[in-house]
């Protein structure tokens, strides 16, 4: 780990002031990913600005939505009674991630900004365009079971590892930012980028910008929602494929509205817009679900080790929607 200086910020403006103009400064949340990457010398900040003292409240909004302070821990968010009642897919997504210990440490802001777990990204001896632009990508023809089947580029096939973000993408969450040029907001679905030819630039954050809060709009039908994560062991593993879904069916058994997002398949949490469009107005049955899944995965391409994820994603989508159809929750 490279040496650094440490500062603890009392509020967002103090944090921004501390980091301003320093490209090698990093905001430190729970540290569960950043500290690991620093130890591997993949991240080499010269300054850490501790932002765990920033607001961590989880407050219902008058419109029925929710405002979540970026320093709220993953556990706090998953255990929040409003989240459990109104956004169960979010609670389940968070709880499917990592371990209880890590969820107790990790913050909402940090979870959003965690970096890929591609082993070639972690190994300084490997070629990685994300770690070292222009170096090449050892994952593309290497061990790529956990890699992207959607939206990948010749430069990078890494995936975003967050479970929570998949639910946030499905919920149309807004991310509130603050930075040297002032506060602004961005849809979570637009915060993370596809790799293109610059996989090292992972988000739309500008230099020095900080996530201060995440806002969930009201979504009454999200009470009928869930998250399913498929992985290589029964717990404590990253997703091969995950599906966050909320389903609204009318009395005639027709899909009135649906939210669907995928994890483990792309460089960003993948909002399944094509599948959603294909489902709306269709009968809520296995045939429609399969057609929607096919529509979403039509553009998917497999690599040596991960081609199975295309079919796995389709099946998991169908299963999750089927589960929500049968469930009276």
């Amino acid at each position: 780990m490279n040496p650094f200086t440490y500062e603890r910020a009392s509020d967002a403006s103090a944090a921004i002031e501390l980091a301003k103009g320093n490209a090698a400064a990093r905001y430190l949340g729970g540290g569960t990913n950043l500290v690991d990457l620093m130890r591997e010398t993949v991240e080499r900040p010269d300054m850490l600005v501790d932002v765990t003292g920033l607001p961590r409240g989880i407050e219902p909004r008058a419109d029925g939505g929710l405002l979540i302070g970026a320093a709220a821990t993953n556990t706090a968010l998953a255990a929040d009674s409003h989240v459990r009642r109104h956004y169960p897919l979010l609670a389940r997504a968070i709880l499917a991630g990592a371990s209880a210990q890590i969820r107790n440490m990790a913050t909402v802001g940090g979870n959003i900004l965690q970096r890929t777990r591609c082993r070639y990204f972690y190994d300084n001896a490997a070629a990685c365009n994300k770690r070292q632009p222009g170096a090449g990508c050892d994952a593309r023809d290497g061990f790529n079971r956990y890699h992207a089947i959607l939206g990948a580029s010749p430069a990078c096939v890494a995936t975003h590892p967050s479970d929570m973000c998949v639910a946030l993408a499905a919920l149309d969450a807004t991310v509130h930012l603050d930075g040297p040029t002032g506060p602004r907001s961005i849809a979570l679905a637009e915060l993370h980028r596809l790799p293109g030819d610059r996989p090292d630039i992972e988000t739309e954050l500008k230099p020095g910008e900080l996530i201060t809060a995440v806002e969930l709009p009201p979504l009454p039908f999200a009470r009928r929602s869930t998250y399913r994560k498929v992985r290589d062991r029964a717990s404590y593993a990253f997703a091969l494929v995950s599906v966050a879904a909320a389903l609204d069916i009318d009395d005639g058994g027709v899909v009135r509205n649906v939210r669907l997002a995928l994890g483990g398949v792309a460089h960003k949490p993948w909002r399944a817009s094509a599948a959603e469009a294909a489902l709306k107005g269709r009968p809520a049955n296995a045939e429609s679900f399969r057609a929607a899944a096919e529509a979403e995965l039509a553009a998917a391409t497999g690599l040596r080790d991960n081609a199975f994820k295309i079919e796995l994603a389709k099946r998991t989508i169908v299963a999750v929607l089927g589960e929500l159809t049968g469930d009276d929750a």
Partner: protein
Amino acid sequence: MNFTINGQSVEVEADIRSSLLDLLRNSLGFTGTKKGCDQGACGACTVLVDGERINSCLALAVQYQGRSITTVEGLGSDGALHPLQQAFVEHDGFQCGYCTPGQLCSAIGMAREIERNVPSVVTADLTAASVTVDETELRERMSGNLCRCGAYNGIIEAISETLAETSASQTPASSHERARA
């Protein structure tokens, strides 16, 4: 840096890069807390911070100044084993004993989470007023602590027994935490 460790106030000079784990082990001699991966993937380093379980390997010590930290050394009282420690011995909840301090701290943190009605991914009803503790709940909640010797059954038996014996009003907290409460 200042910490309260097992009820005792300590002040220590440390490298800014030091993890809470290395600080405990190398600077303070609390070697009961173990290092198994140094990357949050095994749980051997689990300690309690203000009663919550965390992976001390991923925690920069500097970030935890002023906090109250409980390690395995702080679980028992006056030389007597904590009931959970005793249950681990009885149920053979370990073989080599290396992951054990982390398992113990994790289980104690877990008991508090259950008491606070924190759900897990296998909790069927997220809106229930309390967690229904069964073996599946315990196994999922303890999955952040690897045991390569494979003492998993004994660990669950020990925890189940201890949870059952601990009345609803009493968390199996560590002795100094009980003393403070």
